[in-house]
């Protein structure tokens, strides 16, 4: 008892239960996913009993594998297509907004910022409903399906890009541009030659985040889907989990995860290369984690 008290009172001791909690949490968060990936390689049709190893549910099964079942295959295409397009649109929009809002001293800057951030606090079911109703009743020239889904994904992505890029902007200040202009650079060129390179890391991080949240989105994709061919991977996971659940579902999810990791990895490596060139040494992962928040 006294030992315990002494240990607690010692200001320089190391907390021991913390590593245990952390370890348990990590196991809890990651192990189920690893098990799910393992079952994607199951030989048999069970998703809970280990029955050998095979690629049956990836491509070997003639009817029910990800590759041979057109529903699953198109879901994967649809997810990738949406994520790619959402990156291409949301990142420029969000980055420009970040630059604009941070530098803009006008009265409208604050409301613009609040507007962008309010998408973050809107539950997906609310945004999904809103977009569904508006496409069906007002913007009837936009059809449900890929375009509608894309608009939804871009809308909720802008705020993330804004946060990430603005964080970077605030930390670099405006001295570099001013220096460039003092040296005679035209204004737009100052933005392009000075600001843009400085913002690259945050822009790359935005690409990763937008890709990931677009791949992950379920509610908005489901509300705005026009059925079958525009169902994304999460929509399939949800509907098939309740109906025909075979390990092909696990294979589909694992493939999505794999592709996200590859995409994130490529962007991450590019980012690290950029940082190296500038001699930044802090942990890149660490910086990413902080950007994400």
């Amino acid at each position, binding site marked *: 008892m006294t030992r315990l008290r002494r240990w607690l009172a010692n200001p320089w001791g190391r907390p021991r239960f913390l590593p245990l909690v952390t370890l348990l949490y990590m196991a809890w*968060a990651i192990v189920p996913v690893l098990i799910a990936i393992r079952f994607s390689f199951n030989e048999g049709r069970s998703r809970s009993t280990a029955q050998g190893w095979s690629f049956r549910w990836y491509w070997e099964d003639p009817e029910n594998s990800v590759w041979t079942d057109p529903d699953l295959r198109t879901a994967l295409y649809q997810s990738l297509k949406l994520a790619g397009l959402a990156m291409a649109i949301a990142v420029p929009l969000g980055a420009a907004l970040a630059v604009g809002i941070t530098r803009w001293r006008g009265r409208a800057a604050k409301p613009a910022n609040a507007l962008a951030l309010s998408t973050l606090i809107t539950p997906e079911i609310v945004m999904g409903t809103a977009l569904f109703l*508006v496409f069906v009743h007002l913007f009837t020239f936009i059809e449900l399906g890929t375009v509608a889904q894309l608009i939804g994904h871009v809308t909720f992505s802008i705020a993330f890009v804004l946060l990430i890029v603005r964080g970077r902007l605030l930390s670099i200040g405006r001295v570099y541009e001013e220096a460039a202009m003092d040296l005679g650079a035209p204004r737009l060129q100052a933005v392009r030659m000075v600001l843009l390179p400085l913002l690259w890391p945050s822009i790359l991080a935005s690409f990763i985040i937008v890709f990931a949240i677009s791949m992950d989105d379920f509610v908005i994709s489901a509300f705005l889907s026009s059925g079958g061919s525009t169902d994304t991977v999460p929509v399939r996971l949800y509907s098939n989990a309740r109906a025909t659940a075979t390990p092909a579902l696990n294979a589909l999810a694992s493939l999505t995860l794999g592709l996200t990791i590859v995409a994130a990895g490529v962007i991450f490596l590019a980012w690290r290369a950029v940082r190296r060139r500038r001699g930044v040494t802090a942990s890149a992962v660490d910086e990413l984690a*902080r950007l994400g928040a």
Partner: protein
Amino acid sequence: MLYPRWMWPAFSAPAVLWLLAFFVVPFYSILAVAMGSVDPILQQPQPAWNPADWDPNAFTFVFDNLFYGGGIFQKVFARTIAYVAIAVVLSLVIAYPVAYYIARHAGRWKTLLLVGLVAPFFISYLMRMLAWINLLQEDGWVNEVLVWTGILDEPRNWLDGRASSVVLGLVYGYVPFMILPLYAFLDRVDPRVLEAARDLGASRFNAFRLVTLPLSTPAILAGVVIIALPMFGDYYTPDLLSASPNTTMIGNQINFYLRGGQLVPVGAALVCVLMAMLLILLAYYLFATARAARRLAE
């Protein structure tokens, strides 16, 4: 001014216009549908765009069932609030120590642990949920472990519609989104502040209680808001983990009314009511953070 006046508004304009068109206008359309009617043949909503045509009946129905005892929505709102509250508290209990450890004590494991923290962002929520469901099945590994260790005598049916499974599912799904902001904040706390506290004789616990915890109040509040708001709109977690009337959350009820039939305006009105509730919550958050900032400044 180095730049012309129009330049920064011009940078902001595309995204602002986008958000006006695809965020603000859609919000109005929810209201227009809630205040509108349905056509008698295909039962599709006829939004009332003009406030002069507004017909508040859907709201009347929702309020009647919300504020009178035993109404359809009262139970569901109460249950949703309870689930979210418990899930948020549990999430905090898990998230804080983990974030704290990684931020301050992880040492050379830090990078690896950070990868573990970020990983859930790259794994689809539904995939994580399905993985978890698989383990919870009657012949799943959770039961096997519990029976093998003797905690349970026989396998338990975790998916038979119990509230605990839904709440744990919510925690499982959302806790990573709370850890990250907490980590980002705790990592920024200047260690010298704590060292000073300890130099002054504070025990580790007291240093935490009197210095770290108050300092991190804004981060905790931010984490709470980040996970609580989406939980209020969740309908797929209870659907997948329970599908029992006893765990119906407000999102399920919204989804039920919205998915066709002639009562879509009721669904739209429910969305408006939910949003109003969340805005109150948010206002409290802003107030609380402002207060915390003031306290720290003193």
